[in-house]
């Protein structure tokens, strides 16, 4: 009985998840009422209100002390709050930019938003959990929703293919993850991360090899979700096949959630048991950014280019993982937030071109875009500059913090490789900027057609733009929050 009351109390620390779940259920039940759930309008509205409420509820959570909930299953700390905020911002922007895109893709159904909310709830659960079995549960919750979302446009072959590919490889990686957990359990006798941390700190691990082996398998499982080379093969195809807002969501949300769990599992625990992790991560970081950038150079589809660039960005983030300091982890959180804004912004513009102007996502569709739509064109330039890492955008500060953490830890050659990569990356972003400011030969490529409801898309873009610029010009407060979030 007392336990029951404790659980109800604990639910406060669990508020964003509950709100998202409730809004998802409301949409589901509402659409059962005939004439009410038409064409996803109602769904998007409720989803938007729900996710904004969830974001606001973080204010309540921020006041709470660091606290373990539900018998050591979940935790409420600054780290999870920062990431939940990042994820919710991503969800809100994705809902905003989805509205028209989904209509064009022929998936104007309320279930789209339900799945979006559920996957978002799963991610929140994942960053809050400190028990490995909870992590796995959350991973499956959001993964299942995302598998469906990728293939939600049933009539498009390419989407279905992407969905199947993602499902098969995802299931495979989940198996790796789970198999790794069994070894970790075998070595430590517990799946509670805090207990594992204590055991590692006290040096009471009887079988270090099993723990290392299990850790490696867990790393494989997570690397798949983050899209670290060589676990990235699915990324371009799935990103290209999925509806564009879902691509954006995956590039930002899934990556952030998986990285958060990665930091939780490795950051203060498993990294301590072997010095060789750093060498492994060093190699992973280098090949991830190099492969991402070099492949991105040769893409003709903007969506595919952004997919490969997201791989490269995962590589940059891994630079801070190699550094392995709190300063670096804070940098990762900051990077994820900035990446959310700038990448969603870039995808928002792609959606604008693709769905509202009725063009494809290849480079040619962007020809003359900067002259026809000067303001959105300029927005795209700012997002691309931020992705490139030029000041005064958030992308620069994020890269700066991440790279400086590695310099601080003495990995200067890694940073040299990373900056050479950034210079290579500049080329493919520039190519898009050039295309935007190249006059189109045929005048019909970008037409001014009356656009219904593009206001939502614009709001999404404005949020991304403000975020990108604010984090670049006055990053102090947020950077401080990120740094505080990782210092336990």
């Amino acid at each position, binding site marked *: 009985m007392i336990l029951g009351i404790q659980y109800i109390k604990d639910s406060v620390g669990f508020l964003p998840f509950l709100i998202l779940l409730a809004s998802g259920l409301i949409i589901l039940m509402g659409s059962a009422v005939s004439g009410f759930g038409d064409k996803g309008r109602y769904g998007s509205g409720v989803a938007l209100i729900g996710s904004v409420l969830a974001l606001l509820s973080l204010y309540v959570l921020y006041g709470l002390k660091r606290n373990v909930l539900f018998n050591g299953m979940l935790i409420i700390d600054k780290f999870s709050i920062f990431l939940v905020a990042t994820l919710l911002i991503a969800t809100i922007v994705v809902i905003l930019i989805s509205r028209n895109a989904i209509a064009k893709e022929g998936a104007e159904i309320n279930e789209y938003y339900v799945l979006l909310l559920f996957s978002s709830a799963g991610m929140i659960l994942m960053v809050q959990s400190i028990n490995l079995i909870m992590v796995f549960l959350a991973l499956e919750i959001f993964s299942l929703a995302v598998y469906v979302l990728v293939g939600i446009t049933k009539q498009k072959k390419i989407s279905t293919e992407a969905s199947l590919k993602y499902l098969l490889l995802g299931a495979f990686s989940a198996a790796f993850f789970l198999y790794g957990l069994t070894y970790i359990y075998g070595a430590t006798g517990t799946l509670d991360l805090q207990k594992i941390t204590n055991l590692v700190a006290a040096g009471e691990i009887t079988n270090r090899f099993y723990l290392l082996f299990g850790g490696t398998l867990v790393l494989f499982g997570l690397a798949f979700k983050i899209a670290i080379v060589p676990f990235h093969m699915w990324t371009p195809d799935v990103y290209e096949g999925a509806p564009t807002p879902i691509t954006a969501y995956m590039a930002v949300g899934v990556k952030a959630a998986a990285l958060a769990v990665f930091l939780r599992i490795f950051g203060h625990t498993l990294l301590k048991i072997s010095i060789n992790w750093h060498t492994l991560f060093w190699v992973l970081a280098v090949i991830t950014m190099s492969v991402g950038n070099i492949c991105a150079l040769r893409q003709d589809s903007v969506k595919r280019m952004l997919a490969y660039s997201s791989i490269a960005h995962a590589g940059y983030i891994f630079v801070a993982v190699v550094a392995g300091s709190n300063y670096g982890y804070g940098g990762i959180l900051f990077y994820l937030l900035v990446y959310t804004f700038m990448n969603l912004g870039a995808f928002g513009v792609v959606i604008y071109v693709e769905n509202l102007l009725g063009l494809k996502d290849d480079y040619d569709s962007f020809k003359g875009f900067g*002259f026809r739509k000067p303001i959105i064109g300029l927005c795209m330039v700012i997002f691309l500059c931020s992705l490139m890492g030029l000041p005064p955008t958030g992308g620069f500060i994020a890269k700066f913090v991440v790279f400086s953490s590695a310099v601080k830890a003495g990995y200067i050659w890694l940073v040299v490789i990373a900056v050479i990569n950034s*210079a290579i990356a500049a080329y493919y972003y520039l190519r898009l900027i050039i295309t935007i400011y190249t006059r189109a030969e045929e005048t019909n490529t970008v037409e001014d057609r009356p656009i219904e409801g593009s206001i939502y898309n614009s709001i999404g873009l404005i949020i991304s733009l403000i975020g990108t610029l604010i984090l670049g010009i006055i990053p102090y407060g947020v950077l401080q929050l990120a*740094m505080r979030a990782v210092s336990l």
Partner: protein
Amino acid sequence: MHETNFPILSIIIFFPIIGILLIAFTERKDGYLQKWIAFWTTLIDFIISLPLFFAFKNVADFQFVEKVNWIPSLGISYHVGVDGISLLLVLLTTFLCPICIAACWKDIQDKVKEFLIAFLFLEVSMIGVFCALDLFLFYIFWELMLVPMFLLILVWGAPARRVYASVKFFLYTMAGSMMMLVGILVLYFYHGKVTGDYTFDLLKMFQLKLPFRYEFWLFLAFGIAFAIKVPMFPFHTWLPDAHTEAPTIGSVILAGVLLKMGTYGFVRFNLSLFPHATMYFMEFMGILAVIGIIYGAFMCLVQKDLKRLIAYSSVSHLGFVMLGVFALNVQGLTGGMIQMINHGLSTGALFLLVGMIYERRHTRLIAEFGGLAKCLPLYATFFMIVTLSSIGLPGLNGFIGEFLIMLGAFKAKWWLGVLAASGVILAAWYMLWMYQRVMFGKVVHEVNLKLKDLVAREVWILVPLIIFIVWIGVHPNTFLSKMEPSIKNIVSKYEKIKISEGNTKINILKNLKGERS
């Protein structure tokens, strides 16, 4: 340190933002209104910057310093100030900007609004680079300059190869500055580790004594960014392309100010932060500079395009600047600094003049001209003065700079001076030959007979430049006296090193002798 309460530098740096906002709210078709706004913005900015010159005390300290915390947890502050080295470059920037706006009056008719906004944005970042006293702030301004300049070349450049030229410019600069970023970070953490004070403050960095290994690599990391910007010999290939394809005032700003950011960077950072490495690389840099001088000059001789010719002459002239800077004595550095200003004025004027003839004839090929002196007497006169100043005729500005540089080079390494002197002769050859082919002889092409001479606006653009060309040539001390204390400050550092190293050598010799006896 001399502190003032009035934030004059911030006002100078950010004043163009007002112009940007005003222009942003005008109608797209009001091209001339936008140009007037931009013109007055830049002119007022120049007028505000004048008190800097008069209130500047002739001491080596940084003046008009402002410091506000920006990201305190990382030791980043908004810290600006000028000394004798940056003062004249700030003034050169504010001086050239209104001239550029006036020069684009007829030239730019397409997308005027965006053009002016990009240009004013560029002005902010250029002045910022010269004023920043915080490494982080410096880097921000340095990178900020990249995008507007890229767009100037890409959107308003000559259609044929503008994409190639702009991408080349961007990637070259970006690659260099990323290396500098690594250098800045290493310096920051080394400073933090040694002193316990994690800061990007340049003034505190100046106090730092680095081990030679660090100095060596940091010199290279910073040096590559600056060498690309200057551009020094093996990294110069972006310059002719960028210049040729850029619109006229893009070239003027590129030659006048952007290239100076590289040479300024060498003086401000490499010379002041890494003295031992600078001594070590002195000869090497001197040789690269001389290669640049001679190579640039020979390239000029074979150019068919006027603008390309002037671009290569920039490579040659910047070689002189670098030679002077790496002579590491008072004469050489003074010459290098004043030559930066000279090059901004003379080459800026040359690009303006080429732009004017291009507006009339829509070609820049030397073969298309000939005998222009007959139909365009005023134009030919101005061109003559500027050409002579570029060659280094006594009485005009170029002479002062080149003479001091030679003096410094001879004092440092006589053979570098001898080789560089050949550059002066070559300069006279290619410039006068170009002038002869364009201005004298028979009028081969009938079209040229109908060309109109300069109008009042164009004369007024050129007159201020000519005034300063003559002023520096006749009475350089007005300007030299401002930079002298700062330069002596830098040079004294090197003399100390020379003496101490000399002492160690003597000591070693003494020890050796002692052992023998």
